[in-house]
């Protein structure tokens, strides 16, 4: 019995922790932090143990909604290589970030709210990982959305944070709109929401033709919303308003990866629908290019990393689009989680060191002030930009190049876009590194920057190891079995390494000793004016229509249905009043006329 209940313990431990913090955490900081970290620790240990266990075959579930033969929604736990990988991934990064945030949030207010939010997030993320049907995944999908809403809005007294959290939730909701529609369409044909049930009915689904393609693209909408792909990416850079550990855990490593995980979970159906995978590949490719371009011109340290995350997610989505097995995008997700979380935590320690200064142009020469952070950031930067040649390299090198190679083979145009983006990635990563750590101190805060306390630096160290080692073949073979496509032109590897060197060199030249940003491309800096485009769109369509219907409701519907009848009765009363003439003969006349009229109708007609 123990074996089957372990996954439930993993799932519900953070929820229990969140509940307890909600009730008791208000009064004592250590209690709330302790509860959260304890829960994360339990999950970590159990998930590593679960990783060792064989896959579960029998469905281990209870029924959330069960109307006998019409509609049944089980709440089940699936244990298979995909979910075990994610379990391990999430549950190793989470404790590290929890411990790190002890230091980061030391003298912040709303301590209990922060840890309750993080535990709630962990609960919902594990829910997505272990979901065995679409509806359960959708439930935790929205719960993850709400926990990111809570965490982004942690500093709710700041207008920017409040707007960012609202925007994040609403954009996610728009994505979920498409997702739910996709689920509904699939359910209508297959009659079930459970993944295995859907996979069994794939031939039936195929017979639907374009219907299935629409359904798959709609399901992909969920990923666009959650993993901030192109049309719905605006919320991720703004979500940097939340505390940095939140950005590292949620908006870099795990939450945004949920979209890609869902596609991986749904992969068997996607294999059958080439058109949908084409759409997915193209969205992924364009997103990674555009995001990389935007990243080159940002000044806020966290925003650069945010755009880089969008770009890397674009790679993963591209991977889903072009690869033939789900493991290839998952491999990049796995490595990206480590090094992007590392980079964010380094940024966090820089921000704390610089007393909450986030503009890179106010930093400089921090390498001697914050050596450990500097070294960890180098590891992260090398992993992110995919440094490495031939057999050896950092984790990013293996996973990103794998996707690029597959892309070049299956979708050449997208492949070469991905290659160019790799160069851009190297450029903006090292631009960040050189401006922040090298050059002269650009502000007095930079002059007296101090290294972060041990409780923050040790997690950095812990994360630096997988950032470097996660991609090595013998480590990667534990989790995945990926192989390169058979005949891949050697040219690609060469060009990639060349572009890496070019990017780094360009960054070195431009930003080695730059006081302010030498190149300024307003198009990229203003994020292709997408944000103000959306603002305008919302203002005219939604608010315009809303005020129009508000006016209509008061003056048209209300007038027509309520005022009109009441006015009508008043008018009738007013008119009939004039019959009272006051003189007897008039009455006699009316009386006589009435009688004669009546008689005429009765007799003479």
């Amino acid at each position, binding site marked *: 019995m123990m074996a089957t209940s372990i996954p439930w313990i993993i799932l519900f431990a953070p929820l229990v922790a969140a509940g307890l913090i909600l009730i008791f955490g208000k009064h004592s900081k250590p209690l709330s932090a302790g509860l959260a970290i304890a829960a994360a620790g339990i999950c970590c240990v159990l998930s590593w143990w679960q990783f060792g266990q064989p896959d579960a075959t029998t469905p281990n579930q209870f029924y959330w909604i069960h109307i006998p033969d019409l509609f049944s929604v089980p709440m089940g736990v699936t244990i298979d290589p995909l979910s075990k990988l994610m379990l391990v991934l999430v549950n190793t990064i989470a404790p590290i970030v929890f411990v790190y945030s002890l230091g980061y949030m030391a003298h912040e207010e709303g301590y209990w709210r922060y840890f309750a939010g993080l535990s709630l997030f962990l609960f919902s993320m594990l829910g997505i990982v272990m979901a065995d049907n679409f509806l359960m995944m959708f439930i935790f999908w929205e719960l993850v959305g709400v926990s990111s809403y809570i965490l982004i809005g942690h500093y709710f007294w700041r207008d920017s944070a409040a707007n960012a959290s609202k925007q994040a939730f609403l954009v996610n909701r728009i994505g979920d709109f498409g997702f739910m529609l996709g689920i509904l369409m699939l359910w209508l044909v297959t009659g079930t929401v459970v993944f295995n049930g859907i996979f069994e009915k794939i031939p039936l689904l195929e017979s639907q033709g374009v219907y299935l393609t629409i359904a798959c693209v709609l399901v992909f909408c969920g990923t666009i919303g959650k993993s901030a792909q192109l049309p719905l990416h605006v919320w991720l850079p703004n979500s940097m308003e939340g505390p940095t550990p939140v950005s590292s855990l949620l908006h870099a490593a795990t939450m945004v990866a949920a979209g890609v995980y869902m596609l991986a979970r749904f992969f068997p159906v996607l294999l059958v629908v080439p058109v949908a995978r084409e759409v997915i590949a193209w969205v992924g490719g364009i997103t990674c290019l555009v995001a990389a371009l935007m990243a080159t011109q940002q000044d806020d340290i966290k925003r650069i990393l945010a755009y880089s995350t969008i770009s890397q997610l674009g790679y993963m989505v591209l991977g889903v689009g072009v690869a033939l097995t789900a493991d290839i995008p998952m491999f990049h997700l796995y490595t990206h989680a480590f090094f992007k979380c590392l980079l964010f935590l380094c940024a966090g320690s820089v921000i704390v060191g610089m007393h909450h200064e986030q503009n890179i142009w106010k930093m400089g020469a921090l390498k001697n002030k914050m050596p450990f952070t500097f070294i960890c950031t180098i590891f992260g930067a090398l992993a992110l930009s995919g440094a490495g040649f031939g057999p050896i390299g950092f984790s990013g090198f293996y996973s990103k190049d794998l996707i690029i190679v597959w892309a070049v083979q299956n979708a050449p145009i997208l492949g070469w876009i991905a290659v160019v983006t790799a160069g851009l990635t190297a450029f903006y990563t090292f631009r960040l590194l050189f401006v922040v750590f090298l050059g002269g101190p650009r502000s007095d805060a930079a002059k007296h920057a101090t290294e972060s306390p041990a409780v923050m630096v040790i997690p950095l160290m812990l994360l630096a190891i997988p950032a470097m080692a996660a991609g090595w073949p013998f480590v990667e073979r534990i989790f995945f079995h990926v192989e390169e496509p058979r005949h891949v032109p050697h040219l690609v590897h060469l060009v990639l390494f060349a572009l890496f060197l070019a990017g780094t060199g360009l960054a070195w030249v431009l930003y080695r000793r730059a006081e302010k940003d030498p190149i300024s491309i307003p198009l990229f800096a203003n994020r292709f004016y997408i944000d103000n485009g959306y603002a305008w769109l919302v203002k005219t369509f939604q608010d315009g229509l809303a005020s129009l219907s508000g006016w209509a409701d008061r003056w048209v519907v209300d007038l027509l249905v309520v005022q009109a009848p009441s006015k009508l009765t008043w008018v009738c009363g007013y008119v009939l009043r004039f019959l009272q003439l006051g003189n007897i*003969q008039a009455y006699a*006349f009316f009386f*006589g*006329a009435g009688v*004669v009229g009546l008689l*005429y109708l009765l*007799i*003479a007609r």
Partner: protein
Amino acid sequence: MQIVLFWIFASLMLFFGALVVTLRNPVSCALSLVMTFLALAALFVTLDAFFIGVIQILVYTGAVMVLFLFIIMLLDLRGEKTRRLNLGAWAGGGLVAVGFVGLLVRVIHTLPGFAFEKPPLSDPSASDVAAVGWTLFEFFNLPFQIIGVLLLVATVGVVLLSKREIK
């Protein structure tokens, strides 16, 4: 022969009735009304309703017209000066009257049911007063009592209405 008598009295009645409506001086109107009532009483007699004919004269001509004359005297009404002819009222009234008459004639002529002469009485000498009294007290006893109460109420009403407020 009876038809001639009937038409004499009928035309008398209608002529004096028209006079009531057209004359200016109220006293002459009242007197022409008296003549109408008398002619009407005569018509009742032609219908062998002697008791009703007598009552008609007694009550109407005797009491009601006397009351009218008394009131006309009390209020000292002169003949009215001819006010501006209110054309609208006259046209309306005339139209209604003509319409009514037209309908009347139409009905009477189209329905054959009325065009039969007086059926002979089985016992012409039977006194209609006894018959009326008998019917009154046999079938209409309750209405009779109510009429009594009505008259009482009328007298009380008149007394109240004409009581002069003592300033």
